[in-house]
């Protein structure tokens, strides 16, 4: 599954895009935490995102439930929650 990272998640991972294995949001997050320990430490708590971060599927909808099933071709966007400024 393709993952695009924005804001703090990008800063922690050190990349703007990555591949992660899994068929649910939770599995993707677990795999990302393994691949990018800094991202895992600061943004991910087990199979969920910590407060202040959110995931979006292909720009279509925001999701938080780790059981959210992903479809082939989905792109997971990880971003900081707040906008503003």
């Amino acid at each position, binding site marked *: 599954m393709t993952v695009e990272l924005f804001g703090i998640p990008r800063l922690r991972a050190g990349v*703007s895009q990555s591949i992660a294995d899994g068929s649910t949001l939770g599995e993707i997050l677990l795999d990302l935490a393994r691949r990018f320990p800094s991202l895992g430490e600061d943004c991910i708590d087990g199979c969920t995102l910590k407060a202040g971060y959110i995931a979006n599927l292909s720009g279509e909808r925001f999701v938080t439930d780790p059981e959210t099933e992903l479809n082939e071709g989905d792109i997971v966007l990880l971003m900081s929650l707040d906008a503003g*400024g």
Partner: protein
Amino acid sequence: MHPTPGYHGRYLRIDLSIGIAKSVSLEASFLRKYLGGSGLGVALLMKEGAAMVDPLSPEAAIAFVFSPLVGSPLTTSAKFAVVSKSPLTQRINDSLASSGFALTGKKTGNDAIVLVGRASRPSIVLIENDQVRLEPAEDLMGCSNPETQEKLRSRLGSDFQIATIGPAGERLVRFSTISHDGRHAGRGGSGAVLGSKNIKAIAVRGTQRVQWSDQSALVRLAKELSEKSFGPATAKYRELGTASNLLTFNRLNVLPTRNFQQGSFHGATAISSEELGVVRNRTRASCAACTIGCEHLYSLKSGVPVRLEYESLFALGSLCGIDDSEIVLVASQRCDAAGLDTISSGGTIGFAMECAERGLIDAPWLRFGDGNALLRALDLIVSGKGLGQLLAMGSRAMAMEIGCDSIEFAPQVKGLELPGYDPRGLQMMALGFAVGSRGADHNRSGAYEVDFSEAVDRRNVGPESAHLAVESEDRAALMDSLILCKFLRGVFGDLFQESAEILRLVTGWNLTATELRETALRIVTEKKRFNILAGWTPSEDTLPKRMLQTAIPEDARASLSTDRLASLIKAYNLARGWSEEGWLPESETGAGAL
């Protein structure tokens, strides 16, 4: 009788026409109803009858308002509000800025400073505790904000804190700012209001401190709040600054581009904070008494650091089709120096670029993507020469002058240019823009937070969600009146409950979350009342026709019909306890009934 802790219990009212300053008492019950900042400011303006006068006339009032939390150890509390009727919108305007002017202004022994009248010559208002005097300012006319502040620090001493207008405010540009220490009370043209009063600067120095009701507990709470402010809820602001929104918005196709003709920008990466951070020196700064430190400064090629926020980046970048980061930084620096609101500057110039490309104005040099044209347009606004006269009025007035249905793509609500959120793809924010008391505004409504959540489908928001826009406005009204920086909002579990505890320790009032919710509603309602007196009608709670007739080109689902926006507005008004159209209960028959 001692004033309520946290307050001095009075404000200073200066009539510039006759050169008389008067201390006016503020009853504790009045302060409890409006708190400070924006809330107290609109209440004071209502007392002055400011809604029904020309904001640039001598009769107009402008209030610099502190708050009960200013001077406390609470992080991000060193803020002040500037409240007046806007010369850009002819509606209420409250803009916030921060740092030493708030701390020292309150130490003059006043909870607010209200200016009315007009000085007979260009002047500086000097306030030192109970002493007030006007000094001539002819030698400062035409000076930029940094130059004025530097000259006045040399003349008066570094312990004076100074708020200034730049050349834009002197020339009454309708979107000029009031500046202090590089920060701005930015939106709505408060700089022009001060300029119309012949006031170039206000300098404050004082020694009067307020008491705190429970100082030791307040210090403990402040320490806890500071510790929370180092957490993940503020990491984005602290480590990247607001400019990091750009690529996220671009990815979601909600980055206003080329006067809202597109929702993504081919040059987004080139001007993004991520790229700027690689190719330029970056430093950080903080407002006084702030533990977040959201300000990120990027160096020009000359080495001069420039503050850059997302709103400046989008307005002077993608909105005008500019992909040259040096141009965006130079433009931002020129706006800061001259005292121009970057959002309205970019919004108006982007609109003019489209008008020029359509042949509606004779400015063949003004084209999207042309950085030199952007800088030239900014200079013309400040000088008032040529096209600058038209640009300085803002996009709504400019469209009215041009005609040819250009108002349909003027990027404004109530005359205030839209900030960097395409409302077609962020429809809770669309509602917030439409009903906002000061126009299209991301600070008095943070409804975009709802769009960035699972609570709604951001491209198909229905009236059942309108209460979320109400909640967002109420939270903003409370934070803008306490005052606390909104970048702190993520650290609160229950903002109203925790704010009640903060205010209890500061003032001694036994407040509840319910009372503070009522206070927030009262403040929002008072702004509406001001606007009704100023001539508001339901027809102005809307969006530009472009937003209601076309989808974002990159995202066909990002469309918002006139009917659906109307249903959102109706639901919002009913959730507020107002009529379907938005009249207050006592004004069902219209403004004349008030």
